[in-house]
């Protein structure tokens, strides 16, 4: 056995050990180098699970295969305002708590269907609030609407919206997506102003 294989096997063993409950206390740092935020390996795992629920592995690669959770963290660290970063970290805590409160399980213990339902419920609440705010904004002199406290804190929704946005951003701008799904041409070399198109019949 060469040295590289030994290390690989060792990594598998250690990786397996990480599944033991005792290791949930492990404060290991995230794999991606971050300048402005502090993320533990457990938190990174949670973001990975959320990202994988958003873009799951199917017949094609999913979020974890494409390391989109690490991209989410990279973007959060570099491209967001400090208050958004703080809200993200706080919201991530609320997210973990809410999973236990609503489903009596940590997010990683939920089955796929429940994970999806959980995320969709957060998304639904966010959308309803946006619609209400917009409606209120249309009435210029109206008193600010008293937004009834929903199930999810503003920070939680912020956390979720950043993970979702950057997971999709990372996915649709990934080499995999841009060479296999919607092909990006660096040098098209052509412009056809009139190109026939056949619309599919509505199903």
């Amino acid at each position: 056995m060469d040295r590289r294989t030994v290390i690989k096997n060792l990594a598998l063993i250690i990786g397996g050990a990480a599944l033991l409950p005792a290791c949930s206390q492990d404060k290991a740092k995230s794999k991606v180098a971050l300048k402005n935020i502090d993320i533990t390996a457990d938190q990174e795992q949670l973001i990975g699970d959320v990202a994988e629920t958003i873009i799951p592995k199917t017949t094609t690669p999913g979020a974890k295969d494409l390391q989109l959770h690490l991209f989410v963290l990279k973007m959060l660290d570099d491209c967001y305002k400090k208050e958004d970063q703080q809200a993200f970290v706080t919201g991530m805590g609320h997210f973990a708590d809410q999973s236990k409160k609503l489903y009596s399980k940590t997010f990683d213990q939920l089955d796929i269907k429940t994970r999806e339902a959980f995320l969709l419920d957060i998304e639904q609440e966010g959308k309803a609030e946006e619609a209400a705010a917009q409606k209120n904004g249309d009435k210029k002199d109206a008193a600010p609407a008293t937004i009834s406290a929903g199930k999810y804190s503003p920070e939680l929704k912020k956390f979720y919206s950043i993970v979702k946005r950057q997971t999709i951003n990372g996915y649709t701008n990934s080499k995999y997506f841009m060479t296999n799904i919607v092909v990006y041409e660096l040098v098209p070399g052509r412009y056809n102003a009139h190109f026939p198109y056949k619309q599919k019949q509505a199903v």
Partner: protein
Amino acid sequence: MANLNIDSVKQRTFDAIVIGSGMSGGWAAKEFTDKGLKTLILERGRDVKHIKDYPTTNMYPWEFEHRGELPMAVQEANPIVNRCYAFGESAAHFFVKDAEHPYIQDKPFDWIRGYQVGGKSLLWARQTQRWSDFDFEGPARDGFAVDWPIRYKDIAPWYSYVEKFAGISGNRDGIAELPDGEFLPAFPLNTVEEYFRDHVKSKYKNRYVISARCAHLSTPKQIHLDQGRVQCQRRTICERGCPFGGYFSANATTIPWALKSGHATLRPFSVVESIIYDEKLGKATGVRVIDTNTKEAIEYYAKVIFVNAAALNTNLILLNSKSHRFPNGLGNDSGVLGKYVAFHNYSAHIGAEYDGAKEWTTDGRNPAGGGYIPRFRNVYKQETDFLRGYASGFSAYRYPERSWDGVGSSLKDNLANKELGPWHVGSHMMGETIPKESNFVSLDDKQKDAWGVPLLKMNIDYDDNDEKMKKDYVEQLTEMFTSAGFTNIKASTDKRAPGLDIHEMGGARMGNDPKTSILNKWNQVHSVKNVFVTDGASMTSTSCQNPSLTYMAFTARAADYAMSEMKKGNI
């Protein structure tokens, strides 16, 4: 020692000095070196060599660390330049950062700059339209600014001259108010752009939708191949610098051409502090340069000096060139230097959908960007409650609508959707603004930059005419869109500061009368015959065409005149 000094002066003496290596400076350098003049090109920024210094030009989207977005720290440190649409991860290295070169905003002004060899010619939107006499006669007819000292016939041959070399794509549309040029084949309008063109033609007498004319090599000619440029590859990531030389930039075109002649010396990192005026000789003898690396002050000398530092920096240099003869700035006997600055009003847009032509789309990308609607307001006579008018961009496009709703495999399916949505159409306004004495730049009497040059103060604003014109653009385009059967029409206006159009002009305007202008009809300083200004600073009025082509033509024409005057011994 004495000999050494003489040698040093000799080494620092040229036939011509060109201040600035961008859109117009590159042309001056090319023209002088073509005729064998020993030419010094001064550039305040770093060198950017064609291809070699385009670090992002062949990068795929996924190769950008933040997929095109700039880190928040960069955005927060650069609120001004961050408002420019092209300031992103792929081209930020070609823009001046806010803190690097401060200026004073007595009134808000977004000064977008590119300090490097090539200047903003690397970054421009590459739209090129000629002026006509409807533009040159504007100030005299409508009673603002001063009369242009030239007419279309004076500049027309020079438009042809620069167009052939630069490579301009367009159709010969036969529109009097937007004269035809020496065109390479146009980038065609697509199905819906053509539909709108035909509709507008049938409904209005003097409104046209044409293929946008642009500085791209749709089909290059020998003169372009001789420059080392090849056909435009329709990449539309031009702001990164083009390895094909598919569009006109000084970097791909005029600067290497001038250097190839063996007559040019390019000196980057050279801020021109002032132009040296000799009271006895009654002319300029050279320029005082600060080397930005060593902070050393060095003088260079020449028979003729072309100021092409970009409109407002050209004003700054002239204002800062003070002498006993010119206490208020070089050539400023009239007192108008720095005044009558104007720009283009880009603050209105309109978008809509078109529920038709479903059996057509486009393939590849259009570097021209689509269509162009020449000015149709107040062309033949005054017809509105505001002066002048606007040109408009127009483009139609369709794309797959990819919903971000939901999660899981259904979201994945949505993101992979290739089914096209309806056609979208869009237009933006490009309005003429009226030069006024109250729109001016001046030097601060206390604050200086890192090179000891006074900071420029901006006092430039919109006026009532701009507001009325903006309202008219929205009304007219809404009407045109409505009658074309476009739906879901949404007009929007924004509160952008002047400057973001990156078409600042004037301050050292041309005119017949030395009492009310700085330059004569040859872009020559009235009172300092061996100094010429051929960039945006020279503009008497702005009309609404994209200005770069006109700067190029002015520059080639002025260089030709300067050389004939040199031959005659007049300068």
